């Protein structure tokens, strides 16, 4: 029963991944592919500072997006799980997920309208007299990229945390208070540790995909806000250097995976250390 989806994933994911790894050890001059095994692509990534800078910036942006998204999302998930009447929970979740499913490109573009020189934020702030000149640090830089991505991935962060919070047996919280903890300390000693699997899932589900987004940096990032995904895209589609693009994609994947694993590992140690 499970074999059709398994075969599909192997065929469409595992096999292409293998292909791209193989590809990254080849080279390409214009349209001709040289299939001799070489580390040249990786050497180029290692030696040219632009790649390291891009990777660093990408990881930094993904990290910031993850942090902002998860911190902003947790109270919402908590609110829906603990303070919304059971029959209205699915309505709240529905409202939270709807923007996520609607025209991604146009949503990103509209952030440009909101944050732009003549945008909603600037005209609004000028009208109420808080500022005289439009703010310029909120568009065409890393800040804009972070705000937009945090918006795009919000439901991805809320849902896993919500699921983890829903699973918490409410009598555990009463037990904690019965044993002398305040509501506040109960949150830190019971609720948060039990919600941790959801938080970890949220972190991973935001952190990993954001590294692969090139639309937001392209539209929002300006010259200084381009990320590694933009470079991969350029190598493949504009410069016709697929092997270098492949190597770059692999290096990016390895970095993301390594950081994710480190995070999961540290989190486990932290949870074990507490109990």
């Amino acid at each position, binding site marked *: 029963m499970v074999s059709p989806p398994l075969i599909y994933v192997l065929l469409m994911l595992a096999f292409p991944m293998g292909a791209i790894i193989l590809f990254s050890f080849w080279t390409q001059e214009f349209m001709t592919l040289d299939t001799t095994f070489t580390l040249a692509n990786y050497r180029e990534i290692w030696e040219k500072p632009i790649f390291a800078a891009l990777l660093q910036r990408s990881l930094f942006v993904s990290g910031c997006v993850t942090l902002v998204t998860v911190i902003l999302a947790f109270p919402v998930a908590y609110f829906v799980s603990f303070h919304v009447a059971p029959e209205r*929970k699915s309505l709240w979740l529905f409202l939270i997920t709807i923007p996520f*499913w609607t025209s991604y490109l146009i949503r990103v573009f509209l952030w440009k309208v909101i944050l732009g020189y003549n945008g909603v934020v600037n005209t609004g702030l000028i009208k109420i007299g808080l500022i005289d000149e439009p703010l310029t640090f909120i568009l065409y830089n890393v800040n804009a990229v972070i705000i937009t991505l945090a918006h795009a991935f919000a439901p991805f962060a809320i849902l896993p945390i919500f699921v983890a919070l829903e699973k918490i047996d409410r009598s555990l919280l009463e037990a904690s208070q019965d044993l002398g903890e305040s509501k506040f300390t109960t949150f830190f000693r019971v609720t948060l540790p039990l919600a941790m699997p959801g938080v970890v899932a949220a972190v991973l589900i935001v952190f990993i995909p954001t590294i692969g987004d090139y639309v937001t940096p392209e539209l929002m990032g300006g010259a200084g806000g381009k990320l590694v995904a933009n470079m991969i895209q350029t190598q493949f589609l504009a410069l016709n250097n697929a092997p270098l693009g*492949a190597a770059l994609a692999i290096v990016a994947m390895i970095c993301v995976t390594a950081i994710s694993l480190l995070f999961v590992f540290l989190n486990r140690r932290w949870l074990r250390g507490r109990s």
Partner: protein
Amino acid sequence: MTLRIYAIAYLVFLYAPIILLPLFAFNDATIIAFPLSGFTTEWFQQLMTTQALHRAAQNSLFIAVLTALLSTILGVCAARAGAMYDFPLKRGILGLVMIPLVLPEIIVAVSLLVVAVQIFDVGLSNWTVIAAHVLICTPFSIAILNGAFQNLDPAMEEAAMDLGESRWSAFRLVTLPLVMPGIIASMLIAFTISLDEFIIAFFLTGANPTMPVYIWGLLRFPASLPVVMALGTILVALSIALLTCAELLRRRGMARVGLKDKGGFI
């Protein structure tokens, strides 16, 4: 109380871009900025007459319908296997099938590009986009269908067989009616994702662009932005309608098996 205010503020943040869409779609100005000038339906009329847009829309519909069908079929297989059977490496296999959910889309895009163009030399077409979209939609289908299948008592099909039905007719008479709402919800979600997906489609689309790829092209020309707003308004309205259907169906499915609703999709 402060938590409620925060949650509502958060919803406003989530909806901010979407609320702006219709404002500019009906705004009688070529620049997308405040203040608004006047009311017009001109941008919608322009949509009606743009041939390239219609072709892109047809492409996207074709891709989305097939993606919805295929990913739901795969999703049914996986969800049913996960809910009803035990087999070796079960967790590993079910985990592997869900991986595209967390994989950066650009990785999916470039690896399939390499395979399609450089290795098999099949050329890019709607089919390459469909192949990739099925890959990323299947985990969502599985997640939705898991809900439908896990609520099923495995004894139910056994009871049907005990009462004389064959394995297939037991599935058709008992399981299928119970999971039907989930199946339709899965198709609607996969359809919506595919219709909206850009990052992968941009790499894998052939001579005829999909709708998002077409929109991407328009975004570079300031003069065409109001038309994009009008198009966006239609797409958002369509998505919301589809998602509302999916959600209502999901709830009806839960009610049909007499379960209390505990949450939304995923």
